[in-house]
């Protein structure tokens, strides 16, 4: 076999080694959009190219996230990459497809039109994937076509003539493996070459009528034939794994085991890490008390800031573990199977299998859960899922539940010590949240969000090993978001609360808590919350928790400290 028929990643003929027009006249940085169908490895490629120099952003007005990052280039060049939501075509139906469409056409006022496009396709299913090349090439932007998963293609006995395809498409084509990092240097060279040389927009090639799907598919099939494309053998391991994961008996067992493992991780395995962190917070508090001179500053730092922040920061391991689990499930391809298994049950609540993914994430945090609803094409289903996601017990509520249970529920063993009353109470709180979600979903779907049984169309991607890089980037992302909240909202609330609990001064001394401003506020709202059995101290906590749920734990910590 000649080398270009091999699965080895290499660039094909590059008619235009530099794909971008020069930007000398403008000072705006170069923006290159990464586009591709779902499961084509867009995000993996994006992570490869940008590493840590990326951030998640949200398009205003829609629940669609996009990631923007600076390409790691050896030369002194500023090339920004944007990872757009996956699309099968440029005929928008779902909200995320609309975003991709609008950005590429330059129709979003809040986002500049990209200067060039990197189209990434799954080389193991080129026939169908190439269909997307038609609308992308019709944009008349400089385009680089990447055929991803070269390792998979080669291993399963497929092949493609990259040079021939490049000649057919009249644009550079490269065979790469984003997971293995093969061929990435070619893309970098490519991006570097971009700004240097002047290039006319790509020469026109004959494209099919874009909204005629059969015609587009025929065009793609013809390209495949001309590029001597040989489709790989079916993914054997995926079939074998599906024989277990979708087995009538083993399937649901595995599904339940996965859900139980997720919860076990958050509640048991995270405990040693949390205890260690708690200990570290206590130790450092004592250490600060020891080295700082007694006074208002030490009190603010130790009783206000540190006890407030410390009581929340201990939940970092738990949140990271939950996101790690969701990341593994998503990257491995199991989440699609879970959605398939859950569909029947979800349909009974008027929802669908795809709602399962956001709802599981909602146990970590409602915000990413609402972001995750974008995969649901049916608008009514999507809104219903968004409405009930916050009813799931998110990890921010965990600190409070833990605190309340530890305070009020005695540690009595149940069923001969297999379970304990606190654990059952915790489970009960989770079940209650879920039950509320189910009832509300049913209510919404039978009234304001009524729709016919919506269609459920879900592609089952082949199973893949999650990569360390993608998982760690996710965790760094989520960790940053959490710590930013701790460093901003929770820190501010802790300082304000400390001040309110220490003024007005009585003869130059701090007043007892019930004679402080915080005490007055708490007492003022006490009549309203007394029917619930809450006293004024909890009242203060309720007000501060408006900023963020988990703040109440910090507040009660500070107040208790102050009350002593």
């Amino acid at each position, binding site marked *: 076999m000649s080398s270009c028929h091999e699965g080895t990643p290499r660039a094909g003929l590059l008619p235009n080694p530099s794909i971008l027009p020069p930007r000398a006249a403008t000072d705006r940085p170069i923006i290159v959009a990464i586009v591709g169908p779902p499961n084509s490895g867009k995000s993996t490629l994006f992570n490869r190219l940008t590493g840590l120099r990326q951030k998640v952003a949200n398009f205003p007005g829609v629940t669609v996230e996009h990631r923007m990052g600076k390409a790691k280039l050896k030369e002194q060049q500023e090339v920004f990459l944007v990872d757009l939501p996956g699309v099968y075509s440029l005929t928008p139906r779902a909200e995320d497809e609309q975003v991709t469409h609008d950005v590429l056409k330059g129709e979003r006022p809040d986002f500049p039109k990209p200067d060039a496009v990197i189209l990434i396709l799954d080389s193991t299913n080129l026939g169908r994937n190439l269909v997307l090349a038609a609308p992308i090439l019709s944009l008349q932007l400089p385009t680089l076509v990447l055929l991803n998963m070269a390792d998979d293609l080669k291993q399963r006995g497929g092949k493609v003539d990259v040079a021939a395809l490049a000649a057919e498409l009249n644009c550079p084509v490269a065979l790469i493996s984003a997971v293995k990092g093969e061929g990435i240097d070619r893309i970098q060279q490519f991006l570097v070459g971009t700004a240097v040389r002047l290039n006319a927009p790509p020469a026109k090639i004959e494209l099919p009528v874009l909204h005629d799907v059969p015609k587009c598919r025929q065009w793609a099939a013809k390209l495949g034939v001309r590029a001597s494309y040989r489709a790989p053998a079916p993914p054997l391991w995926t079939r074998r794994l599906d024989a277990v994961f979708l087995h009538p008996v083993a399937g649901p067992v595995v599904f339940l085991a996965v859900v139980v493992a997720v919860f076990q991780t958050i509640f048991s395995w995270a405990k040693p890490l949390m205890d260690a962190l708690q200990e570290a917070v206590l130790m450092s508090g004592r250490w600060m008390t020891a080295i700082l001179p007694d006074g208002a500053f030490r009190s603010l730092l130790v009783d206000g800031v540190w006890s407030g922040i410390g009581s929340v920061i201990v939940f970092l391991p738990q949140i990271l573990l939950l996101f790690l689990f969701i990341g593994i499930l998503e990257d491995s391809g199991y989440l699609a199977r879970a959605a398939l298994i859950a569909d029947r049950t979800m349909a009974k609540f008027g929802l669908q299998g795809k709602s399962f993914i956001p709802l599981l994430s909602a146990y970590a945090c409602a915000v990413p859960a609402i972001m995750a609803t974008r995969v649901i094409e049916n608008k009514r289903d999507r809104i219903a899922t968004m409405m009930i996601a916050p009813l799931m017990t998110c990890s921010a509520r965990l600190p409070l539940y833990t605190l309340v249970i530890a305070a009020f529920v005695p540690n009595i063993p149940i069923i001969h010590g297999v379970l304990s009353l606190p654990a059952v109470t915790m489970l009960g709180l989770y079940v209650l949240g879920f039950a509320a979600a189910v009832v509300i979903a049913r209510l919404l779907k039978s009234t304001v969000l009524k729709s016919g049984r919506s269609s459920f169309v879900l*592609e089952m991607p082949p199973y893949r090993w999650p990569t360390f890089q993608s998982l760690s980037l996710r965790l760094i992302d989520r960790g940053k978001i959490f710590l930013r909240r701790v460093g901003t909202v929770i820190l501010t609330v802790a300082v304000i609360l400390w001040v309110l609990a220490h003024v007005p001064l009585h003869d130059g001394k701090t007043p007892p808590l019930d004679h402080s401003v915080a005490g007055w506020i708490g007492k003022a709202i006490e009549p309203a919350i007394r029917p619930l059995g809450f006293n004024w101290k909890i009242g203060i906590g309720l007000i501060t928790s408006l900023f963020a749920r988990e703040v109440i734990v910090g507040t009660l910590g500070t107040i208790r400290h102050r009350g002593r």
Partner: protein
Amino acid sequence: MRRKHRSAKKRAGTGQRSLADLSTGERCILDRLDLPEDVARRLMELGFLPGNEIIPARRAPGGGPRVFRVDGSEVALREDTAARLYVRRDPESDLIVLS
């Protein structure tokens, strides 16, 4: 669309079979999609094109949606959607025209 008259003739007879009537592993050729335009388009983009070969594979445990092998990938559809994708069984005479 090209085959409209043919499929109409078949339907007039015994009633045309749909994807929901097939047993696992039974190869067939998709004839037409009787679905709202946006759903039909999405399905066509995923490979459910008239003339394409489709193989029904696993069903979700407990009778949920079913996975279909189509155009090099696997796509899950609910029963009621599958019931509106009509098929015929003449694989030899109707392979996709490539050029």
